[in-house]
């Protein structure tokens, strides 16, 4: 009970600070929209190649925008010495991780809610209800790994450079699964692997490993 209350307190604090500063949401949202617009103009979209290009464009926008926000998750707190203040509290480090993960999911989720209709309009694709579990599972994978490694990168000086280098190789399975699953929604292909099942498996592994290792990552 105490664990959950502390996690929710940190989440409440992060949301309130973000609503007031508007630093992360605005940047992430603008970036995602810009990527979609640029891809829309950069590729020669036709009916026959839409299913090959649109899912990639969507997930590139989501992943890059997510990294902008993920980089700020713990770095901003560490820069101001506030992570130490948090560590002084009698709080299970897993509660800090859970709160930061939920915050990241929320921030990325808001950006996705804004970006998806724009994507549908620009790429002339319908928004399927079946896209929801793909977006949820894909976002969970990216946010989980991103939260863990943002804590690691925040302790270094070259955090902006380090975070993508650490995160991109690890999220490749999730991103590939998400792109292929999205593509399958547009043009159904036979004999496809169970992409949703793969994403679920990756998410479970990422979540378990991150929960267990976060304590050691943020330790001085």
């Amino acid at each position: 009970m105490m664990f959950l209350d502390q996690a929710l307190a940190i989440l409440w604090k992060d949301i309130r600070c973000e609503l007031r500063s508007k630093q992360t949401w605005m940047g992430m949202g603008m970036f995602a929209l810009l990527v979609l617009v640029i891809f829309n103009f950069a590729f020669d979209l036709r009916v026959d190649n839409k299913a090959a290009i649109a899912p990639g464009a969507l997930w590139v926008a989501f992943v890059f925008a997510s990294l902008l926000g993920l980089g700020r998750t713990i770095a901003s707190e560490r820069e101001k010495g506030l992570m130490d203040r948090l560590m002084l509290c009698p709080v299970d480090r897993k509660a800090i991780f859970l709160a930061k993960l939920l915050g990241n999911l929320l921030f990325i989720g808001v950006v996705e809610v804004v970006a998806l209709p724009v994507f549908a309009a620009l790429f002339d694709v319908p928004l399927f209800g079946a896209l929801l579990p793909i977006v949820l599972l894909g976002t969970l994978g990216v946010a989980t790994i991103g939260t863990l490694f943002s804590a690691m990168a925040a302790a270094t000086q070259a955090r902006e450079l380090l975070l993508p280098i650490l995160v991109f190789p690890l999220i490749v399975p999730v991103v590939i699964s998400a792109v292929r699953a999205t593509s399958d929604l547009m043009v159904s292909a036979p004999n496809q692997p169970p992409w949703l099942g793969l994403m679920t498996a990756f998410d479970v592994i990422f979540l378990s490993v991150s929960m267990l290792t976060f304590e050691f990552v943020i330790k001085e």
Partner: protein
Amino acid sequence: MSHPYLEITGLKKNYGLKPVLRGVDLAVERGQRVALLGANGAGKTTLLRVLAGLTEPDAGKVCIGGLDITRDGLQARRLIGFVSHQPYLYDDLTVVENLHFFGRMYAVKQRKERASILLERVGLAKRASERASSLSRGQSQRLALARALLHAPRLLLLDEPDTGLDEDGITLLETLLNEHARDGGAVLFTTHQLEHAMQWSDRIGLLNGGRMAYQRETREVEAGSVRQAYQEALR
């Protein structure tokens, strides 16, 4: 025989190959205020960080209220109130929201009432709904003091708490430390102000090169002898 509330034995800490604490022994009893002096780089802040559980020691033992901080860190942290020389507040939260947040983190019962009382105590009640970023340096330090007392800790660790405080703030700090000790709490603070160390403490320690070079009961020493020891440590 009662044990000291804070007991440090043979504490060592290295940063890389550089030894910062080289076997510190120190004890603070209930109701006692101990001042720690030392030149820059003597290891004062590192010592407090180890005691607060922010940094793990390489060797030695620290017990707070009978709890080993390495083994029972979570429970031991409940007993500690920490004030740093920087206030470290959430600028985007209001003054009172800062206290409510930390009240939740420490599971303080009736935290809203407790926050109001403490804000009144440190003279920030009228600014409760303003953003923490609007506070001056001294006011931020007052808020940091209120935050440290929020969960009624038994041990106060203060790292140069007099930094940035005006005359009223200094008086307030002294009063709060005295009250805390009178209520049976233990206090360990560092300062560069010899006068503050002499006025506010029951015992004075001098940390030099990562070791306790000098420890005396304050009433038994004269400012001159402490100053001399301090000057020698600086050389």
